[in-house]
């Protein structure tokens, strides 16, 4: 695919897959909320960007006019057909959506997820210990995204799905192709795709099931009929894609914040009761995920006349900073008491993995706060951090200097 031509104007020609957008996104959303408030681009075959919370919420709750058949805006068009889509249930519409989602609700319920916390904590402790050991030999230099944040969800998801933890680089490469530059990379060999990779494991689990989620799906039935290979592959692909960049982004952005706000780091260390509120505020202020819909029936939203088959981005991160919906919306309030943030979406497609992501973020921060007493950005410049492009936004590199550490307890 050809590289995209340069943007002429944010409100009428935006391109969320560019570095320029990624580095300036919160400011761009603000100009949209105050102005348009629904931006448009002819790129990708035509796409809308409703910036305000009210419009985002209305679209997320309206499954009549908006289909989920394709949720990553790209140059190649729609990947699947309604109502099932490529990766059920995220790409499914009612009534099939509810059937596909129910198969997964129990393993992602808060009580089921709580069982994964001890292993997640061990992962975080090991990663921090290794990072601090290296930092101690290099004048405190470390990368909080590369050395820490990116590995946490990879290891948790690999464990959940029963995939080799050592395949993290592979997962990240598949995900990069799909999310960061959708449709813009050179075609790859059919053997080197996410689906081909997953097919071998699904076949293995069908033959020899374990207690992992892939085995759970190979055993699952709808109306007495086992799920087809397409359904299982799509759902496993979804769990892998949706569970990694997103959580990595949330953890990385939270650490980027703490690097610049040592007072917040100290408060999290000294006030354990603050953490649940802080986690939700990190999720509000640094929400990584923008979803998308396809218009199924013509409708006018925020003055924008949306037509069948137009793309519509659902920018939950922009909704989360809308002053119409939040007090002091543009400020990070670490102990915010009223926080109906939409980081995990709204309506029937509420992020299935929200309990897992929230647990990972909390544990990652708890362990960081317990081990790192002081740290700062290695470079203070505005472009010291590279934010990912596309619909998942987080720092992909986060160079820091560790200034002071705390003695770590023995990992149990």
């Amino acid at each position, binding site marked *: 695919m050809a590289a995209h031509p340069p943007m002429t104007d944010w409100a009428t020609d935006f391109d969320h897959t560019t570095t320029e957008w990624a580095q300036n996104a919160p400011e761009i959303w603000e100009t949209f909320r105050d102005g348009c408030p629904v931006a448009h681009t002819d790129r990708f075959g035509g796409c809308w960007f409703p910036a305000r919370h009210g419009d985002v919420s209305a679209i997320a709750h309206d499954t009549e006019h908006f289909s989920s058949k394709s949720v990553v805006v790209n140059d190649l068009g729609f990947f699947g057909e309604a109502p099932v889509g490529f990766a059920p249930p995220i790409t499914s519409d009612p009534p099939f959506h509810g059937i596909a989602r129910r198969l997964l609700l129990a393993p992602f319920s808060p009580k089921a997820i709580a069982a994964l916390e001890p292993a997640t904590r061990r992962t975080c402790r090991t990663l921090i210990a290794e990072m601090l050991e290296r930092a101690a030999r290099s004048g405190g230099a470390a990368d909080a995204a590369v050395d820490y944040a990116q590995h946490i969800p990879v290891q948790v998801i690999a464990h959940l799905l029963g995939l080799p933890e050592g395949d993290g680089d592979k997962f990240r490469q598949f995900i990069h192709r799909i999310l960061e530059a959708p449709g813009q990379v050179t075609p790859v060999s059919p053997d080197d795709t996410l689906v081909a990779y997953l097919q071998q494991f699904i076949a293995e689990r069908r033959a020899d099931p374990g207690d992992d989620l892939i085995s759970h799906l190979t055993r699952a039935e709808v109306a007495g009929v086992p799920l087809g290979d397409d359904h299982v592959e799509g759902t496993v692909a979804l769990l892998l894609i949706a569970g990694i960049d997103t959580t990595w982004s949330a953890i990385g952005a939270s650490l980027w914040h703490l690097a610049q706000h040592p007072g917040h780091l100290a408060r999290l260390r000294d006030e354990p009761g603050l953490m649940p509120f802080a986690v939700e505020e990190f999720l509000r202020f640094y929400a990584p995920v923008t979803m998308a819909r396809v218009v199924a029936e013509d409708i006018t939203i925020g003055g924008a006349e949306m037509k069948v088959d137009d793309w519509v981005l659902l920018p939950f991160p922009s909704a989360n900073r809308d002053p119409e919906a939040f007090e002091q919306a543009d400020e990070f309030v670490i102990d915010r008491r009223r926080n109906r943030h939409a980081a995990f979406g709204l*309506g029937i497609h509420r992020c299935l993995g929200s309990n897992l992501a929230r647990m990972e973020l909390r544990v990652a921060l708890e362990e960081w706060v317990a081990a790192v007493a002081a740290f700062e950005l290695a470079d203070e410049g505005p472009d010291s951090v590279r934010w990912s492009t596309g619909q998942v936004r987080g720092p992909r590199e986060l160079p820091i200097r560790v200034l002071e550490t705390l003695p770590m307890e023995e990992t149990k």
Partner: protein
Amino acid sequence: MKINYDRSACQGHNRCYLLAPELFDVDDEGYAILRIDGEVPAELEEKARLTADNCPEYAITVEG
């Protein structure tokens, strides 16, 4: 204080269960279950208000 929970609006965000497990449990699929029959004990009023103020789907309301 009275608390109301609208199951049809709940999408299983689980914010209420995290903030006030004394007031909300969750079922096997992660949807909330209100544990009391509407009247909030005085010592839980602040927590009840928190659950209402943090539900992304406006599924919880308190009166009084």
